[in-house]
């Protein structure tokens, strides 16, 4: 037997006003990602950057430091990351399609960018937000090098290997086949050593959405 909850309208209003004020005064990109190059600290949080990144921070530039000095903020140009250049021989680059600059920054140095990624020579189909644009890692691909940079002959993929199933699972599969078809004449079930689905955040989110759509509501 719970007592009836008191209607606290003023508290409700105060909560809404506080949320609105927080939304209005949230730190801009330029404030959040500002960096003191002498002490390698971010003034916003006071945290220091990891030591292995210091040399890169001193030598390379952020994506928007490059975009600020370009016509139309570099829409349609290709940008690579130094870490990709070092790790992979296949070309990986972002082609920028849309830019949203933080106009409160001094040198138009911060913001968000969207584009099409080509990772290790394979181009993706949709426009995504450029990941890790604040890292001091980016390099512009000059126009006269674009052709040479993006020319890529992919090696033919090695054929998919097949491996026999573990014995218990194999027995279960054969038993199920016998139940459904009633014969044991089928060939040996084999497991392909290839992952058709990349198990990342997007995949699981899509799975959840699918399940919600098919299940509908609980009642």
């Amino acid at each position: 037997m719970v007592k009836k909850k008191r209607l606290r309208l003023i508290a409700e209003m105060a909560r809404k006003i506080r949320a609105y004020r927080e939304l209005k005064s949230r730190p801009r990109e330029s404030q959040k990602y500002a960096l003191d190059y002498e002490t390698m600290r971010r003034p916003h949080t006071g945290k220091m950057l990891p030591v292995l990144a210091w040399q890169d921070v001193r030598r390379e530039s952020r994506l928007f430091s490059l975009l600020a000095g370009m016509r139309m903020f570099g829409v349609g140009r290709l940008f690579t990351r130094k870490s990709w250049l070092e790790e992979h021989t296949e070309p990986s680059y972002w082609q920028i399609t849309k830019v949203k600059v933080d106009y409160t920054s001094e040198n138009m140095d911060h913001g968000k960018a969207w584009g099409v990624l080509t990772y290790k020579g394979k181009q993706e189909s949709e426009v995504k937000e450029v990941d890790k644009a604040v890292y001091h890692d980016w390099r512009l691909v000059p126009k006269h090098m674009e052709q040479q940079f993006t020319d890529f002959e992919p090696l033919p993929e090695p054929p998919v290997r097949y491996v026999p199933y573990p014995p218990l699972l194999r027995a279960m599969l054969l038993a199920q086949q016998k139940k459904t078809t009633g014969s044991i004449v089928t060939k040996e079930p084999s497991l392909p050593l290839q992952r058709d689905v990349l198990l990342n955040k997007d995949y699981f989110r899509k799975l959840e959405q699918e399940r919600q759509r098919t299940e509908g509501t609980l009642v």
Partner: protein
Amino acid sequence: MAYESDLELGDQVYHHETARRWLLSAAYTDSKLWEAREKDPQNLAVLANTMDRTYDRNLPVSSLTVSRFVDNISSREEVDQAEYYLYKFRHSPNCWYLRDWTIHSWIRQCLKYGAREKALHTLKNKVQYGIFPDDFTFNLLIDSYIKDGDFKSSCSVVEEVMLQEAFDLPSTQILSLYALGSYLATRPQLTVAEERGLGASLLLCGLKQDNTVGLSAQLLGNALLGKVEMLKGIHAVFKGMPLFWGRGYLGRALAVMEKAACCEVKLSKDTLDYMNDLLQELSSTSDSDSGEESGGDEDKKENAVDEDDQAEQAKLPQYASRFKELSSQLESQGKVDSASFQALVTVLAQQNLAAVEKPDLEQYNSRIQAWESEKRQLIQREKEMREKAEQEKQERLAAKAAAQQA
């Protein structure tokens, strides 16, 4: 001016008359077409007031207001005011929408009212002012500096063109090569940063041309960049510039010489001499450096210099010997053109400039038409929005009056 020296006396008068024709013709730099657009007279003080109020209220200023302000500049002081408003517009949410015609008219107005240094200043700080001129505007600016013989400033404009990688039109290429050649002919003392800029502009411009001038420019550019690479390391070369990050610029310079050796093209003599001097200078500095290095506090500097850069520096004697081989090969093949780089560029300009100006002018005409129609559209849209706002205001007032009466 350097070109007077390699002409005979008899030709001097002739060349004085035709000197102006070597660079952009009067038709190109004429502002009659630009002035012939329909005028939109606005009071600058009123516009300034509106803009200030809009900024105070944190609302976005439309690009049309800024373009009107720049179009109606009529004196030198107003040029300064316009610069301030361009700065403010760049730091507002609408910075993307700064129109091409606004930038073009800004440069034209600066040239008209003698504020060329201001135009150069805004161009250099393009991050803060958002000035990204198109090819025609760049041509006008470079030409005005060349005509006054100010080759250093024209070279800075060419550097800006290089940073935008805007060497698409052949007229731009010819003008920039002329400016660079004239500047180098005066044999200035260059700092490392200036060398880097000149080298990059020479390289990018030379890549577009497939003749003697182009290859010589590529050679010089690669040589200068190689010098900077040897002295300061590869990161100092490509940071902030649209250049390739691979090491070995001197190696690429030698590759240009090899290309000249096997193809039909010649290289000009003074570029080869320049590269020779450069290599000798570098070898002598590296020798003196290795002689002096003994103290303990040199260790810190060595850690700062990358291993790969050190490997590059070690290749210097190899480069020098290969250069001697290749230059002797080129001379024996007769591929060395004895005319100076600047003379070659002037010849090229004489031959081609008139021809390439025509399509530029036509494109400029069509572009002006497009800009005019866009401007009319913007004005129309602004009028409609103002009428709609008026209407809504009237309705609100009517509703309030009705509520008050009731």
